[in-house]
């Protein structure tokens, strides 16, 4: 039985159960909401912002490199291709997964979860809940590429020989990751289970 059906509301940060209608947790002082009614609106808003920010992140350069012989700019994909050319397949895979597969997988997964609630799908609760947990856990790891840019730009400052500076894509990529993290956090996973009538 869910707390809501029992006429109760539970605190999500400490687990304390209260009578429905209570608004502040007596144990930790956090806000109480039986279900976050605005959850879907917030999820869609952050998700769309995340997708929009992801576009310039792929179009503009992440890194601006200048050496004695050349100046070059590399995008996210360009950086992966470069790593493959050097033969660093493992690192290329890490960057590709963190910067391309995770963000896109996350857009799809969060969109799917939001749609499933919107249309009240009453199946595959376990798979959807699993998808939610994976998204929550893995989304932050996309930040890897931003940190790579930070450390490379700080480290490679050898006047005439070689310098690396961050490109504007680093900013929009970081924004995209932050927005999609907020989208996942705005999702109220309890909504997945509300349509479930197999267990009462």
């Amino acid at each position, binding site marked *: *039985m*869910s707390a809501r059906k029992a006429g109760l509301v539970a605190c999500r940060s400490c687990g304390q159960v209260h009578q429905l209608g209570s608004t502040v947790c007596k144990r930790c002082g956090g806000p109480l909401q039986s279900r976050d009614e605005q959850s879907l609106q917030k999820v869609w808003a952050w998700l769309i912002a995340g997708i929009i920010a992801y576009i310039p992140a792929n179009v503009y350069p992440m890194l601006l490199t200048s050496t004695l012989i050349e100046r070059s700019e590399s995008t996210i994909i360009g950086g992966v291709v470069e790593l493959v050319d050097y033969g660093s397949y493992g690192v290329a895979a890490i960057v590709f997964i963190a910067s391309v597969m995770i963000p896109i997988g996350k857009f799809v997964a969060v969109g799917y979860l939001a749609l499933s609630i919107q249309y009240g799908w009453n199946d595959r609760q376990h798979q959807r809940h699993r998808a939610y947990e994976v998204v929550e856990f893995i989304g932050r790891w996309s930040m890897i590429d931003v940190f790579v840019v930070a*450390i490379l730009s*700080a480290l*490679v400052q050898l006047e005439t020989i070689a310098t690396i500076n961050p490109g*504007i894509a*680093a900013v929009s990529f970081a924004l995209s990751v932050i927005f999609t993290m907020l989208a996942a956090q705005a999702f109220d996973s309890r909504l*997945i289970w509300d349509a479930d009538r197999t267990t009462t």
Partner: protein
Amino acid sequence: MTASLPPLDDLIACPQCDTLHQAQDLPPGSKAHCSRCGVLLMTSKPEAVARILALAITAFILMIAAVSFPFLSLDAGGLTNATSVIDAVLAFRDGLAFPLAVAVAFFIIVIPLMRLSALIYALGPLVRNAAPRSYARAAFTLAERLRPWSMAEIFIVGVTVALIKVAGLAAVTIGPAFWAFAGVVVITVLKDQMICRYSIWEMLDKAEA
């Protein structure tokens, strides 16, 4: 309707799916999962709080070392450039990227330190069996809420990727701060796995009574 229910303080609701469970005293070393969605509800490790506190203090000291000592340095063609963790943050200080410098500072230094101080503040008296400090609850809530935004472990993976990228270009020397930072990451992961929110709230309740 509530007449048939046990006292509210004996119930625990799953934070992920809202299913009600009756809280029980678990045998030491065991775990309780939600009967519907399977999420971990509580673990029973009576000695965990003292260990969490010890790890948090160690991580705090290592973090201070990580921002004070040299992190990495690069040598090529007679030129040397030493980099600290702070320099990595300042890489974004120019122009439009400035807010990103602030964000990175928070993700890799400020938020990890805030989480550690909040935990030390909230759990310190519990270990000594003393009454909790007046904002212990707020501090513990803060430490848990900031968890996803503390990205020290992601930073260290990023640093490793960057090192492989420059390996062909120049010689890199790894400084003590790098190892201190890696230590913070390992300890933080261990510590966060030990935290059972439910048991810590119970302890805070009992210590106050």
